[in-house]
């Protein structure tokens, strides 16, 4: 007779291992965010955020295949929590295996596949060292709060604003999936 009990236990172990891996990844991002908040005196925060792939971002590839309906992607983004309606700057695309590792960072025409915590930490440090990423963070950190209307106008004019999913798409980032746009 097939040993279903053993298979069942194996599945539970695998689920626990996946849960541990995902928590470990969350922990790495929490450490990253905590350190960035500290060093920027609260003017920068980094998180992962889900966006809709928009028609315009797909057409930028000049292929003839439209994105699937409501197709989404994840990105590592930075925001300035001291700004009421902070822009979100995309630093890298983010892909995570359902069991945690490997996870993938995509930026500057590179795909970095990280198979464990050490690799992920090194990769995130490389991301922060990137001059273009550094420039984005610098600009974000030095944003001054504006009047509500003006701030909104400036934010929406930028190429990387998180836009609610039901508004017109944005060329680089698409609309944010979550409704908690700050």
């Amino acid at each position: 007779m097939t040993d279903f009990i053993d298979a069942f236990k194996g599945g539970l172990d695998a689920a626990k291992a996946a849960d541990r891996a995902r928590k470990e990844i969350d922990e790495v991002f929490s450490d990253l965010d905590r350190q960035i908040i500290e060093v920027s005196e609260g003017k920068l925060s980094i998180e992962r955020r889900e966006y809709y792939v928009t028609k315009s971002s797909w057409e930028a590839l000049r292929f003839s295949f439209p994105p699937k309906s409501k197709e989404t992607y994840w990105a590592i983004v930075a925001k300035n929590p001291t700004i009421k309606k902070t822009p979100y700057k995309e630093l890298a695309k983010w892909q995570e295996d359902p069991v945690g590792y490997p996870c993938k960072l995509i930026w500057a025409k590179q795909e970095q596949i990280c198979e464990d915590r050490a690799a992920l930490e090194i990769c995130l440090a490389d991301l922060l060292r990137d001059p273009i990423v550094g420039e984005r963070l610098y600009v974000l950190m030095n944003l001054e709060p504006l009047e509500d209307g003006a701030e909104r106008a400036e934010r929406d004019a930028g190429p990387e604003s998180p836009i609610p999913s039901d508004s017109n798409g944005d060329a680089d980032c698409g609309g944010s999936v979550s409704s908690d746009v700050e």
Partner: protein
Amino acid sequence: MLNEREYEMLTTYTDKVVLAWWNTSLSPCGLERASDTDMTIAINVILHLIRDFEVDCLALGEVRYDDLLAIVESIGNEHYSIYDGTLKEGRLQFDTGVIYNADRLRLVDSCSIVIKHGTSSLKLANRLDLLPLDTKEPLHVFVSHWPSRRSCPENAPDRHRLGMELRKAFEKVRELYCYPKVVFLGDFNDEPFAPALADHLLAIRDRKLVRKSGGEHLYNPFWRHLGERVPHVPGKPCQSYAGSCFYTKNQDTHWRTFDQIIFSSAFLGKGDWHLNEDSTQILQVSPYDASVLNGSTIFDHFPVISVIQKEGIT
């Protein structure tokens, strides 16, 4: 219903793309080592590929950006552009690049794929998304130069990892469409039968199975290039070749077929672009071949070439 012969007679090929890979040996791991004479030999081989074989997409291994610039300058054809894949990241050095005919192919996107495990990194491939002229069907080209057997032995876990991750990269493209046009080329430092390529990437020798499957199998025509090219004839000594690279110091065999071009099933009847297998070969370019076989120069690889052609029925 047309039979095979009638079909062949009515079929014309309206367009073609010639692809080639050559591990030049000029600058392994980005380290310059070629003399002026070596560079002249390399340029002559490349000119032969471009002028006589009309290669549209020439992927090169063991090159630096300066090598690519010197080569394109020597070609003297303004239509050829460079894709510089010679990424350096910490101790990791990609040493591949592509020279392509921009009059026939448009480079739409590209990226370098790296696998990180702890503090070590592996270079998996450079991916180029190309659009052949007048088509809206992208051609996805993965260019790989995997680690040597010295740094990563035959059955090392990293070899399996490379095969599995290249497979995942292919699956990502398959998410976009059922039968994507994907070509893998490079020096894998593995034979076609190695687990990384045959078992993990699923690059097999069985065309029928590739056609029958739902697009998951790949066809590796270089299974047909594993052995001696010319049959043994008693009493007649003949110069033959039994692979794409020649290592004089190897004890078990001097020949290896590490350089390969692998195709997705789209090129075996799942679309209007077809692999021309007659034109798929290891090129023994004379007099360059002598410098490979005598082992006294830096060169130890032959170029490999293949053709895909677009079908149109008259």
